[in-house]
């Protein structure tokens, strides 16, 4: 017997993402899905952001990792609320995982919620978490071809944080070419060139977050 189904495979995730989206809107929180390769500096960026915005914005971070609670511990030490999700091998967060994390960290108590996705440029781009915006992080130590090899995430992102700018002299990363490629993929992208070590670009990044939170 042949059964015609026609059911969207991501339906369950998308339904849950819709629930999350309503929750974020009602809570007046800006939810940002933070996506990058492993080792780009997402957690360090979260630490610095939490430190700089302490007393100005209430920041929460849902941290997705395959294993360990190390990142959540680091972020809490920096002064933000944090909940760790261990995906135990799954390469991306799902809307349901985020919803369960929100039971531990009520969004109405926050101004900005970062959802630090599992380090991976491919799979997280396919799973809607209900966020208002995706932000991609790209470190200068990765080489400049990440945007052209993984264009989907840079096309869907609202902003890109280029991290580890202080290491530019030690790499062959061509910033101008990278910026040109990013513009070609998505000319609406807001781009921040940053260094967590020297502080470059972090004021601009934090001001932008404040303006997003103020707009909510």
């Amino acid at each position, binding site marked *: 017997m*042949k059964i015609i*189904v026609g*059911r969207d495979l991501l339906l369950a995730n998308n339904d849950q993402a819709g629930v999350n989206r309503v929750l974020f809107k009602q809570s007046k929180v800006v939810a940002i899905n933070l996506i990058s390769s492993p080792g780009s500096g997402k957690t360090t960026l979260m630490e610095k952001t939490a430190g700089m915005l302490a007393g100005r914005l209430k920041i929460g971070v849902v941290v997705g990792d395959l294993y360990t609670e190390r990142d959540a511990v680091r972020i809490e030490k920096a002064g933000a609320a944090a909940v760790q999700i261990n995906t135990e091998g799954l390469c*991306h967060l799902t809307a349901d995982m985020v919803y369960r994390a929100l039971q531990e960290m009520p969004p109405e108590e926050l101004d900005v919620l970062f959802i630090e996705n599992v380090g991976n440029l491919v799979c997280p781009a396919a799973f809607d978490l209900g966020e208002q915006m995706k932000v991609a992080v790209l470190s200068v130590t990765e080489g400049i071809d990440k945007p052209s090899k993984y264009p989907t995430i840079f096309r869907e992102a609202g902003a890109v944080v280029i991290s580890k700018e202080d290491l530019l002299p030690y790499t062959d990363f061509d910033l101008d070419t990278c910026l040109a490629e990013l513009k070609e993929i998505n000319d609406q992208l807001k781009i921040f060139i940053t260094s967590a070590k020297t502080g470059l670009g972090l004021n601009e990044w934090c001001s932008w977050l404040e303006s997003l939170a103020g707009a909510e």
Partner: protein
Amino acid sequence: MHELSLIQALIETVAHSAVENDIAKVNTVKIVVGEVYGALPDALDFAFRVLTKDTVCEGAVLEIDKTPLVLKCGACGSEYQPDEINWKCPACGAGGVTAISGKELYVDYYEGD
């Protein structure tokens, strides 16, 4: 390997439907996967073989229909397959496009006894 999540969702969908339709064994499942998801047929096949163990889909054949990404320009109406990086309309250079193919991700049908 988001193919694992997709196949997990696929098996849940088919298993649910099989119960409703009184089907004890599924022989074939056909899915439609748009190019934009970057799902690899080999990885989908591998995930299907691993995850269907002890389910109604165990031993079934997975057929994959991969649809190409086709965009339609919002300004001039041209339909085209974009360059990987540059999605702008090759005819008029406009940036506003909608995908008319390549974003599908669903179970088309399955066959069973």
